[in-house]
């Protein structure tokens, strides 16, 4: 494997005739690039921008606030995935782990199915699942919604904040300040949605999009393919992750998503509202929505870009748009560390700031 990566790195250097800027969309790819130090093996003229593909990072602060409020409510068990427990809402330093320490009932799940079991075990409690993630985790939430409805479970609800990746890529390309010339698309998302949405992007913006995996060699192959397409001036969708991604994606998962969810405009933390960038429960599943059940506001469509949890001290919005690298933030490593995160990208292991903190500094 090392020799394969080295060979790919040499071929990249040979292919490159001028500077190019490529964005890896997915936080898992950012993590892998820094974890293996692959950025050190790239030609200096190939610039990588870390994209916003970290679901923990982009879940709106208003949604986190709602989760915190529900977790503090007597009779409610708030459950969600591990790294959501450390994300601060708009009140600095307050996260679900803190609410749990103060007596709120907060549970960590590794699968949405656990929420169903919990609701069955604790019929006297209201179980709320904070459902986040891209099209990778949304099908599991959809399955949960279907089962909850079939079983007629009245004490289970979903605080949904699922996001869609292609609309975020579109928003980046449509921004007049955009610097991205090619994308590495997130392989796992594409294994669900396929490549049709990416074809639309290429047709509209004329940038190469390469479906890419997560192993070191996968990432190098994806970058090589992106550079080849850039150099040749032939933008198209290329699939460098064929062992996992079919052009049509996963038809069963897609059908499930369509049955349970409908695309909606949604605020992304640090990025502002992304058109059709979220998924909301559609009738008849919308009765499972926790916001409806507990009389909470719908996601506010006026959420300001930038990180609302803090003032100018956090520029995570700029980081998520790839305008700056984490180390260029004045708070990086000082006021903002994984122990005391100001912005969400410092929380998740897939957030760009946390990855830089962990592997670079």
């Amino acid at each position, binding site marked *: 494997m090392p020799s394969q990566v080295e060979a790919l790195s040499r071929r990249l250097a040979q292919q490159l005739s001028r500077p190019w800027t490529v964005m890896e969309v997915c936080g898992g790819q950012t993590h892998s690039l820094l974890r293996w130090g692959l950025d050190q*093996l790239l030609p200096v003229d190939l610039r990588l921008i870390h994209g916003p593909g970290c679901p923990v990072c982009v879940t709106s602060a208003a949604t986190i606030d709602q989760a915190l409020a529900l977790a503090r409510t007597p009779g409610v068990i708030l459950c969600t995935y591990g790294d959501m427990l450390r994300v601060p809402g708009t009140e600095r330093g307050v996260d679900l782990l803190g609410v749990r320490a103060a007596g709120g009932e907060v549970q960590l799940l590794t699968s949405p199915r656990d929420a169903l079991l919990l609701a069955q075990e604790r019929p006297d409690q209201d179980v709320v699942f904070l459902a986040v993630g891209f099209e990778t985790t949304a099908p599991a939430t959809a399955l949960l919604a279907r089962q909850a409805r079939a079983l007629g479970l009245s004490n289970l609800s979903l605080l949904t904040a699922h996001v869609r990746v292609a609309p975020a890529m579109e928003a980046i390309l449509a921004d007049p300040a955009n610097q991205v010339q090619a994308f590495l698309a997130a392989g796992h998302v594409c294994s669900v949605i396929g490549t049709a949405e990416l074809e639309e992007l290429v047709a509209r913006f004329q940038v190469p999009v390469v479906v890419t995996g997560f192993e070191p060699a996968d990432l190098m192959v994806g970058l090589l393919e992106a550079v080849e397409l850039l150099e040749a001036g032939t933008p198209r969708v290329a699939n460098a992750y064929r062992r996992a991604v079919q052009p049509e994606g996963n038809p069963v998962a897609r059908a499930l998503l369509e049955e349970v969810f409908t695309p909606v405009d949604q605020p992304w933390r640090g990025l502002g509202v992304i058109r059709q960038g979220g998924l909301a429960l559609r009738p008849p599943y919308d009765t499972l929505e926790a916001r409806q059940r507990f009389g909470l506001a719908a996601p506010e469509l006026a959420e300001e870009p930038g990180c609302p949890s803090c003032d100018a001290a956090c520029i995570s919005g700029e980081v998520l748009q790839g305008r700056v690298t984490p180390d260029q933030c004045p708070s990086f490593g000082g006021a903002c560390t994984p122990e005391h995160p100001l912005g969400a990208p410092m929380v998740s292991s897939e957030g760009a700031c946390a990855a830089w903190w962990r592997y670079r500094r």
Partner: protein
Amino acid sequence: MSESQERIRLGHGGGGTMMQALIDQEFRGLYADPQLVLHDAATLGRPSGALAFTTDSYVVHPLEFPGGDIGQLAITGTANDLAMAGARPQQISVAWILEEGFELACLRRIVASMATAALACGVAIVTGDTKVVERGKADRLFLTTSGIGVIKSPSPIGPGAIQVGDQLLVSGDLGRHGLAILAARHGLSLEPPLATDCMPLWPQVEACLQAGVRFHCLRDLTRGGLASALQELASAAGMELHLEEERVPVAAAVATACDILGFEPLHLANEGRFLAVVPPEQRALAEELFTAHGGQWIGEVRAGSTRVVLRTRYGSERLLVPPTGELLPRIC
């Protein structure tokens, strides 16, 4: 929950006949000299040489996990802390905090495993204490053990003895215990299942000392794993520790599970693994003794900032930093 099952009651900690019966029936067999526990304190002979003394509390959920339980951990962990001071573990005390309602059947299994662990570690359990708290005031069983050992290392062992050029070795593959616990706690079924690596470390330390290895420092790689241990040593010694990632042993099953869950294997706890720092001229000798037990040379001490730097298999470099807090599985 069965009401007919035998359980701990508050009266078992009341100092009366119920407590005496509990000690007589469940705990007395553990003690090296059962008569001694009738008194308030154990009396020990005066050893020759300096002593090492340590204490540790054990709170683990679940109490029983693949390959071990809290009882085995409480004896082995404290014996291993003594071994890391270059001391042969000798005597151990045990304090029990039992939750009202704790099943006696489980307590018996744990006591049996403590007896087995004491035998394996070569320690005598010489004194103990029992308390019972109301239901909900503890998580079934907490254990505190303290231990005394006799120093056998001819030279001082500790971060203060670390020098630039020293060599780093680990005694076996990393992450099994931490992953076994996390899997048991979060209900993850790993195939094949992973068991704890909990085992006594003194036999290996003693074999090295007898072969002439002079350790500059020893650290067992418990909570926080290799990453935390190395960062502590780098900070304490004021030096840079440099690792070759390819040489750091991690079982394939551990590496794969970590990939899926988003854990760093070097953040995971071990209960039967240690790090050794030896002078450069002793690398070959130490390596020979370590590799015989699945251990490995992993890197060296360099002058520089107090960082832990890891060279990847691709020749690039990255930092190895300790975990932030609780290890939480990632989303996808």
